[in-house]
């Protein structure tokens, strides 16, 4: 009896803000959920980013000038953007090839390759750096061989490039793959049957379909590479004006108790990757809306 009452009370007790039975309660629950969700995202995401923007851009042009006058800041930003652009380009090409092979061809070990593509998502970024030092460091067989032949990877730009290529590999593959899966193969085949050559089919049928996916994946890779810290910090050696990237410089400035300078550079970096992600949302969102229509 008492258990029953306990169970029923919340259902049957008329709440002060409600006149009917179930609809207002749902509304109350909805407002509760909405409130919790907005509070969570507001406090955890919006507030910290507001702090970055207000500290970084708060001083206006002066704070930007401050950012660039930090020793090594200009070089660090230039290096970071250069590396990110290269990484986005290389992975856009190879990522698209891998996505194509994985969706269109059947071969032994296809599943294994597909899993391997996801490995960079799972492996901690710092461990990525450690792996590259283990493979290409001067103490390893491969690294020793390469150094004897004049190829320097560790503590050099090439190492940063390889680390970023590893980290961003899944981004392009996993952005292009769904587009390929959705695409009607008949179109490709029709073009071939009608006498279009392989290159013409690629240029006139395949690439126009994949373009927004490839661009979106490339931009995601670019944004990710701009901010990467863990994979780079061990590999690059962080030599001022040479292999010091912007995220590592920011970390050094903060641990050196210069949060204002760090905020100025950080705001530039954040603005850049934020803008990129907005473009990506637009590209991918556009495609999704199209496919739903």
């Amino acid at each position: 009896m008492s258990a029953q009452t306990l169970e029923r009370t919340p259902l049957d007790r008329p709440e002060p803000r409600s006149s009917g039975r179930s609809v207002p309660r749902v509304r109350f629950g909805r407002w509760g959920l909405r409130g919790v969700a907005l509070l969570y995202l507001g406090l955890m995401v919006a507030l910290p980013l507001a702090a970055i923007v207000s500290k970084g851009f708060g001083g206006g042009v002066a704070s930007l000038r401050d950012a660039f006058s930090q020793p090594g800041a200009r070089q660090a930003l230039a290096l970071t953007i250069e590396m990110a652009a290269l990484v986005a380009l290389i992975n856009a090409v190879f990522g698209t090839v891998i996505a194509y092979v994985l969706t269109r061809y059947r071969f032994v070990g296809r599943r294994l390759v597909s899993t391997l593509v996801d490995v960079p998502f799972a492996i901690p970024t710092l461990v990525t750096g450690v792996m590259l030092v283990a493979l290409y460091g001067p103490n390893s067989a491969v690294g020793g061989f390469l150094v004897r032949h004049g190829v320097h990877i560790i503590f050099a730009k090439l190492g940063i490039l390889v680390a970023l290529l590893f980290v961003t590999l899944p981004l392009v593959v996993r952005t292009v793959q769904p587009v390929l899966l959705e695409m009607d193969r008949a179109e490709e085949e029709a073009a071939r049957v009608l006498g279009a050559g392989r290159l013409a089919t690629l240029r006139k049928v395949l690439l126009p379909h994949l373009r927004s996916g490839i661009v979106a994946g490339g931009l995601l890779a670019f944004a990710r590479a701009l901010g990467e810290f863990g994979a780079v910090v061990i590999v690059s050696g962080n030599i001022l004006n040479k292999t010091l990237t912007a995220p590592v410089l920011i970390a050094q400035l903060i641990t050196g108790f210069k949060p204002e300078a760090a905020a100025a550079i950080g705001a530039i970096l954040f603005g850049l990757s934020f803008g990129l992600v907005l473009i990506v949302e637009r590209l991918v969102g556009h495609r999704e809306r199209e496919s739903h229509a």
Partner: protein
Amino acid sequence: MSASHVSAPAPSEAVRSPRLSETASRRLVHGGLTATALLYVGLLVVAPLIGIAVAAAKPGWSTWSATFADPDARHAYLVTGVITLETIVVTAVLGVVVALVLARDRFAGRSLVSAVVNLPLAVSPVIVGLAAVLLFGRGGWFEPWFTAHGIQVIFALPSMVLVTVFICIPFVIREVAPLLEELGTEEEEAARTLGASPFQTFLRVTLPNIRWGLLYGVALSTARALGEVGAVLIVSGTIAGHTETATLYVLRAFDESKDASGYVVAVTLALVSILLLAGIEIFKRKEEKVLST
């Protein structure tokens, strides 16, 4: 006469030669693309995995047991475990709430909320750490309040958990929200009509339906939380045996040229993340099965 002699073989050649080159070129393209994909994944992903396995095995068992006996290393694992666990609980529970709001609730600014959810993916971990310093560090917005109440946030566990939560926010939401949208509300409405309370409906109907997507998101968060280094480095102050996580231990080991124990801890982290990846693949397949039925 002579003209017909010359022109007679031409058409047959014109028919035959493209067909021959068709099979040949198909094989060439097929093989070439597959080889490119395999080579790229092999060089970029597989080679470093082998590299770290060799590097960690080389110093022998004594290094392994010495590393595991090191109190700093043990404490580092513990700190990583605590942070990961707290992050999982927060991002899973509140992530489901946000996903419910995004999938079921219609209100002005909903698309803004969904953009905010994706923001952490675009922000460099270093900038996340910087934001925490700007909010809770010396001269930060909230520093006076927390100091007055005697709560140490920066250089302590709370800020380390906060930055890790920030970074892991998108994973559960991005998996669960589309799943909820795809599943629709029919089953939930049926349960409600049959007299189940909103909470019962959630526990008995909604949660079982989204469980694989939720687990998938949790596995992704876990991998990310285990491996986070940039943000945690900045807010923790890396006090060995106190605020040092497993990744920070690896970083310090390489700074102090104790590479061997760095490799050991890095390999254990890599192993855990590869196990998580296996889980991720399984959950993904189960989720796809739920959606296809």
